[in-house]
């Protein structure tokens, strides 16, 4: 199980939780697991989010979360 830290306004879709557990080995698994457990998150996750694993921005859906101590969901980032 991985604990995923959400931004707090997403707790509207998770029954008030800002940290939720999903069964996943990869970023894709995290996102799919979140959508399965909390369908209200789907449109937000589908528009694109950044996943930060142990302080590092994950660079793709196949990035591993196995053994991660900290997983954060953030808005998608780019720059100027």
């Amino acid at each position, binding site marked *: 199980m991985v604990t995923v*830290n959400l*931004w707090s306004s997403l707790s509207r879709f998770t029954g008030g939780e800002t940290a939720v557990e999903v069964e996943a080995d990869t970023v894709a698994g995290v996102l799919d697991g979140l959508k399965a457990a909390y369908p*209200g998150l789907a449109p937000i996750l589908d528009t694109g989010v950044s996943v930060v694993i142990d302080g*590092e921005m994950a660079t793709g859906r196949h990035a591993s979360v196995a053994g991660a101590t*900290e997983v954060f969901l*953030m808005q998608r980032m*780019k*720059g*100027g």
Partner: protein
Amino acid sequence: MAKDELGETLHLVGTRPLRPDGLDKVTGRARYGADVSMPGMLWGAVVRSPHAHARIVKIDASKAEALPGVKAVVTRADFPEGLTGENWNLQENTMAGERALYDGHAVAAVAATSALRAQEAARLIEVEYEVLPHVIDVDDAIRPDAPVIREGAADATVPEGSPPNVARYIEFGHGDTEAGFAAADLVRERSYKTEATHQGYIEPHACLGQLGADGKGEMWVCTQGQWYIRQMCSSVLGLEAAQLRVTPSEIGGGFGGKTTIFMEPLSLALSRKAGGRPVKIVMTRSEVLRATGPTASASMDVKIGMTKDGMITAAHAEFRMQGGAFPGAPVDMALYCAFAPYKLPAAQHIGYDVLANRPKCAAYRAPGSPMGAFAVESLIDEMCRELGLDALEVRLKNAVKEGDRASYGPTFGSIGLVETLEAAKSHPNLAAPLGPNQGRGIASGFWFNHSGETSVSLAISEDGTVQVSVGTPDIGGSRASIALMTAETVGIPYEDVRVNVVETGALGVNEPTHGSRATFASGKAAVVAARQAIAEMCRRAAAEWGIDPEAVEWANGAAQPAGPNAGKFPPMGIEEIAAKMGSTGGPISGHHESVPEGAGASFGCHVVDVEVDPETGRTTVLRYLVVQDAGRAIHPSYVEGQFQGGAAQGIGWALNEAYIYGEDGRLQNAVFLDYRVPVASDLPMIDTQIVEVPNPGHPFGVRGVGETGITPPLPAIANAIEAAAGVRMRSLPMSPPKVLAAIRAAREG
């Protein structure tokens, strides 16, 4: 870390050779967006709404079409229907549909045999409007009774019952802020506003597009990202992406504003309608200011708790930002960056992305970060002043370090804020004496830095020189930095490497030069590609020598036996291997495609001395210092250039620049005379100090440096103005009339 492998033997990284594209750029030969013409070329012109918000009742192009030399007119009817999400936003911004949503919104376009003829024809296109109520200011736009920009614009993040122009909502935080504020000796809450500013690149948008009835097309365009142009034009026009070849011109500045499309699809649509003749469109400055991406404007409430010895106990921020008539104001990034330099026991952030009748905002250098910094860094300074504390010491005391939790959630990896603050503290500028009406201001700034999709190809030439194909346009010297890293890796002279910025047909998808990523991501990929080519050259040498490839190593541009047991052969140089490659297995090259990991964040600290004229309210910048963590400066001159350029843009934002709208919702300062960016006589020399806390995510330790520098000037100057004139400016720009009014109000007490 790779840096340590090279640490003692760096020959090129950190030196300052001439840039490879320099000669073309000092002789006028470099070709920018508007500099290329083609046989049979037509010129395009765009008809734009004079209204901030209006229903388009009718478009009559018959008079224009009757004008000799006019070859095509396009309106929204020439675009495919059924787009959704950001693709729809882009299409709607490219060409208005049912309603014009801001002053300058394109409603029609025309192509003719000369630029003057196209402009005449554009004036003959008659558009009937029904003017609708409009809203410009963010605090007006968020009111429940504001004119509605677009029904159904709110995405799933917006709670029900929110005001109609709220398009996105975000809330995040950690810890118990109430307890934190209760533990503070001083709690202050203040409101701040920043106005929209424009990236202000000196080169207006320009493109030359050609599209045939077979769906095959080409485009020459000034852009930060040729694949973005390809993808966005294809989506908006319903084309197959691979059938459109996009070649980037030299680019006359971008700063984020050239990462998206504006009139590019119009040139293709006009070309298709004109039988496939190429169509060139060059924007005027007024079009650039009215209709291309400025940044968002912001209204911000910040609350901070501090103990009397300067420890921050809690922080709260609510930011409202408008990014024009479409979602996308960088309110999330502004909040993420706002408190990033501080280790906070508790923090809460609330953000609203609000629609208004203004042009669709585009990215601008560290999007969002300058606004957040203006609010937070100003308030921290106000509180330090009230508590009698040294602003730099308070920043050091609360500074985040590796392993600390960031204000936006995750744990920081390697960062160099403390080193940056220490370097600022010991810089001689901090000891410079100040006279009457002079004051010093300090502020920090932060940007994440971005990686992004990257594809690089490297090939060894027959004579042993090396060509590198990258997809990130060179805006400020990235060809030089990538050539330095490649030459360092291969062990050949800098002059033996040519870095080419290539068209979309030549590489896999690349994200633009944005997010301070070119030297990080293309540079990292070039190093990996170079190592592949080196491995192949070692294999070729091993085969010549008849030894195991594992027994060959690469040093100083040559293959050599890895040790005494490998065999006794003289080193085989790259020239020799290259000369024989046709008969030893064919071309030698390296490729790397990835989203490189480990883009390291960059912190900066600026120190500014100003003098405020109490009679006029004019602020003169006397002395300016930028200290920033570059990880490692590959070409220090261009790192300094990024620091100085970012600071200058921030100074402009702080003191002069602003979008000024009339009651009618029209932009009133759409020329450089009135939208006044800093000129040479406005600025002093900008002192720089490069801090190098290597980024473990890059083979040479690079952190992107392009963006952080625009962030601290806004609050640093506000802080300096208070020190100089005793007035606290909480809204930008801090122009002479506003400062003078504040001084007079303070005098009258």
